[in-house]
């Protein structure tokens, strides 16, 4: 087997002037990027500009320089709590959820096609139904009728009901559990499609070359050949992990702000208080955090399978 070419960009072989050569390429980019600029880039730029003002939707904004950013870090203790909580959630849920959804996708792709489709539907079902949290509020209900409490009480492990969703001791843990369970989303589906695209000839060649078990096959063949999909999944995992909000379970504001995350803080200022300047500054900080995290992960993913 020839050595697989690096995933570098394919260079057109026709040699004409730069613009003429690529004209049709630019034309293909045009429709998407026109809409993209209008409906995504412009609003984001607007938000970044607004983060330097005291815009509150009603009055004409005044330029306030870095004051929003300064007061976030110097005067807003709650924001620091939010950063801490978001970091705890992201560090645990991000990598674990990512690995879990990949392993699950990989396992499913071993199954016969019909069984695979069935299990994919089952696992993705909660994401389709849109009522994913409900079952967990039943399990972790605060009184003795909740599934968790009634089991603990009847087995004699406790003698009073635990306030799962309102006791600072447990709130974080429960959000982590629920988020991990919910990790079979966008990333999971793209992993499944990515695994379907792997060249079967390569797997057969691997078997001839002495790959004896599924773990070797995973590390030496599957992971390297689907690196771009892994990258996509990683970015989904990052955006997901940094945007976690537990309000559906623990309510807003959560008891003692134990699960108050950056996104909770952002929504509070952006949609309840309507202090859009301040909320935009939070969004920009979150944005910078995600970009930094993305850089790190890209570096790490380049080393996979080598």
């Amino acid at each position, binding site marked *: 087997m020839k050595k697989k070419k690096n995933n570098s960009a394919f260079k057109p072989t026709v040699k004409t002037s730069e613009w003429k050569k690529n004209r049709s390429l630019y034309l293909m*980019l045009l429709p998407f990027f026109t809409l993209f600029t209008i409906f995504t880039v412009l609003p984001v730029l607007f938000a970044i500009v607004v983060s330097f003002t005291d815009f509150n939707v009603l009055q004409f904004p005044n330029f306030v320089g870095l004051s929003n950013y300064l007061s976030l870090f110097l005067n807003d203790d709650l924001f620091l709590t939010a950063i801490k909580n978001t970091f705890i959630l992201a560090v645990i849920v991000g990598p674990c959820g990512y690995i879990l959804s990949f392993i699950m996708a990989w396992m499913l792709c071993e199954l016969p096609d019909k069984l695979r489709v069935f299990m994919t539907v089952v696992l993705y079902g909660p994401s389709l139904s849109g009522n994913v949290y409900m079952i967990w509020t039943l399990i972790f209900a605060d009184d003795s009728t909740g599934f968790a409490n009634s089991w603990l009480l009847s087995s004699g492990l406790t003698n009073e009901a635990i306030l799962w969703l309102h006791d600072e001791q447990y709130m974080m843990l429960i959000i982590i559990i629920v988020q991990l369970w919910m990790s079979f989303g966008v990333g999971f589906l793209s992993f499944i499609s990515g695994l379907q695209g792997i060249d079967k000839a390569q797997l057969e060649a691997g078997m001839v070359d002495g790959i004896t078990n599924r773990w070797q096959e995973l590390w030496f063949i599957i992971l390297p050949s689907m690196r771009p999909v892994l990258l996509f999944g990683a970015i989904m995992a990052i955006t997901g992990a940094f945007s976690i909000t537990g309000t559906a379970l623990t309510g807003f504001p959560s008891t003692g702000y134990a699960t108050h995350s950056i996104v909770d803080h952002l929504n509070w200022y952006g949609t309840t208080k309507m202090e859009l300047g301040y909320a935009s500054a939070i969004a920009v900080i979150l944005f910078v955090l995600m970009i930094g995290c993305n850089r790190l992960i890209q570096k790490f993913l380049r080393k996979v399978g080598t």
Partner: protein
Amino acid sequence: MNAIQRIKASGGFKKSFVRFFTKGRANRSVGGTMFLLFFIACFGVFALFPVLFMLGNAFKPMHELYRYPPTILPENPSVQNFGDLLQYANESLVPFTRYVFNTGILILIGCIGQIIFSAMAAFPLAKFDFKGRGFLSNLVVYALMFSGAVTAVPNYIIMNYLGLMDSLWAVLLPALASTLGLYLLQNFMTMLPDSLIEAAQIDGASYFRTLVQVIMPVVKPAWMTVFIFTFQNLWGNTGGSFLYTENIKPLSYMLSKIAAAGISRQGMASAASLLMFIIPVVIFIIAQSNVMETMATSGMKD
């Protein structure tokens, strides 16, 4: 008959067990396969729970819906909720079919447009080197990371400025330029061997033709996935702050209004949420069944 013959041919139950669950791969251990099935089953049970609950709720009479502690399956199942829903749909001011039509239009244009637009943009970004490629690629990735909560106001202003307020385009156009679809397709196309494109170029195909005839069939799993995301997004879209006229509101708006009416309509609402769930599931199953091993049939050896 066939299965038994196969078991005999492959020798021993253990081997055929592994072969059945791993599509006939020889280098798989029995223990590993057992573990794999157990692992999948555990998560499957947990994921089925909320779905079962919703299914049960739709067939529960009112007094069972509010029983505490809640039961998963109804004791006296009835189709009363669906009857109520049907009656409600018949009596609504705007005919029910109008909502279905609106949602249908949104999904039809949205899904096809999204796949075409993002594939057209993803192909150059994934496979060619030109001025601005790096910049555009980064822009797409970064756009995925900006929180939507603060862009709602500028979005509204832009929509108003363009005069798209209160038309289906206000929902459609942003959906067409969804970054998720582009980024997914771009990453899948990056994985294709360059020789595939080189071959098409030698045959004299234009870039666009290469995309349509060579690339798209090979990345079918990817755009099927994009289709699922777009469908899900538009199916659940209620029109938000952009649609005012009742005539152009989508189905999900009409059904979400039922639940908003309070306790007296909870039965109907749970029937409606089952309906809202079943259709994406059917679409999802069709799309997933199409996510087959396309690479194996593309005939490319790198």
